[in-house]
């Protein structure tokens, strides 16, 4: 059983100064998995929605999402993850990012870096 790394980099343009920015992660393809969310080197949340703080405070920083999905489904070898960044009433979706593994029980780790502007 092997681990495959998928590394993605993207950007997020803040919309306001005062609204809180939150990050939600959905693991798809009926996968069992876990994720951890950093703002720069500060751990913000694991396996739950992260509140990064006010939009003005995240500008210039990187949001890093590290999601790990062991393939535990016989029906498929697809794994996928989707990231939602919400700021007030606005929402932006990143992904879904998908990876097909070669063998059952293989693991995929998605590392998604989002530069906040």
């Amino acid at each position, binding site marked *: 059983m092997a681990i495959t790394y998928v590394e993605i980099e993207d950007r997020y343009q803040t919309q306001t100064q005062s609204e809180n920015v939150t990050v939600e992660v959905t693991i798809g393809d*009926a996968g*069992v998995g876990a994720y*951890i969310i950093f703002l720069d080197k500060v751990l913000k949340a694991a396996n739950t929605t992260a509140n990064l703080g006010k939009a003005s405070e995240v500008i210039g920083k990187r949001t890093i999402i590290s999601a*790990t999905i062991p393939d535990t489904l016989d029906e*498929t070898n697809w794994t996928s993850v989707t990231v939602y960044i919400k700021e007030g009433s606005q929402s932006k979706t990143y*992904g879904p990012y998908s990876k097909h593994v070669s063998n059952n029980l293989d693991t995929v*780790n998605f590392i998604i*870096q989002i530069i906040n502007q």
Partner: protein
Amino acid sequence: MNYQFIRGTLFFVALLACNVCMAQNGNELAVPSTPAFSILNYEPAAIMRPTNPKELSADVLNSFDKNGKLLMNVGLEVAPYWLKSRPALTRAEYLNAKGGQAFKQSLMLSMATVKDTITNNNKLGAGFRFRLSGGKVTAEYTAKEQQLISRATMISVVSSARAFIQTPNPALALTTRQEVIEFIRSAFTNAASGLTSQQLEEFQNYAQSLSSNYSDAQADLLAFTAAINTKIDEASDDLKKEVVALSRKRIGLTTEIAGAASFYKTTHEKFEKAGIWFNAANVRSQTDSWNFSVRYLFMGKDSVNSNLDFGGAYIKELSKFSFSIEAMGRVFHGTMHALDAASNNVTYTDNGMTWRLAAQASYKIAQDISVNLSLGKNFDSPFLQDAGFFSIFGVRYSIFKNNKAALPTVP
């Protein structure tokens, strides 16, 4: 030896001999896992199970020879819904699927070809199987899933260091193994990670044992974190398998439907037989379940034979003892064409109803040894069948069998 002992021994041996044909195992009330193989009564040596459109097209092409003829003795099993990624489907939606979603995610199509070595006919079988409800997972599954999520969190934390090893920002960069270890350690000890001190100790043990194999070059730091993750992942292998196995053990109502048909490829009469299965199983606990099934089989060609089977079963499984009882009815219609003594064409027809009652108990003596006891009366059939014929009454003793009280095969 006295006469009574010899007579008793001979009686027991006779019972063993007459019950050899009952040695098949498995719950015959369930729908077949691969209907196309079941209708052909054949398990192909090579079974293709494509999981994406590219594999499917390659497998279909590989099923034909260079002259465009379908190859024999091959099987294909495909789940159309899973040929592409389903990023919107969460684990919870998958585990609790009902109705249309349960149908889509469980639909399995199968196909097989076989060359009948007796009649020299090539046969093709095609089938489908799906669920309309799949019950609920157990508390044991939920606990194991949480453990696996925790293991995956460990990998996520270790992997997050990769972002800082590769960052162009010197203020954030991790440039030595010690910095990498310290960054990961601080994340493990952060309450938000939800990780335990035992998991931190496990990480530190891996880091310590692997550190000397790598330098502080960027590529080596990435390889170092990957090696730690491989160790964590390998230590999670048994847990992954348990999650897979437990996800199939459901409590509650499961309903399954399957159908299949087989055809001749090399005779003028194409249709051979067809069948449809319906099964509803209610697992009340991990040790206690009942199921109800209906099966209709239809066979054509020289003779016409159709069976409508219906019935139920109750199964009790404890750690050492298991017990099952099955009652089924069969409405049958049989027609056979033959020549009489004067070489006239005659048709024999037999219609009616028959029943089957079977009970089996099993006691596990050791890991692979159990004592089994079965009693039953099988269906009366219009035509004698060469397999699965069930003795009128009998007692069976066997070893090297599992301890499940499985019911004998339905002919």
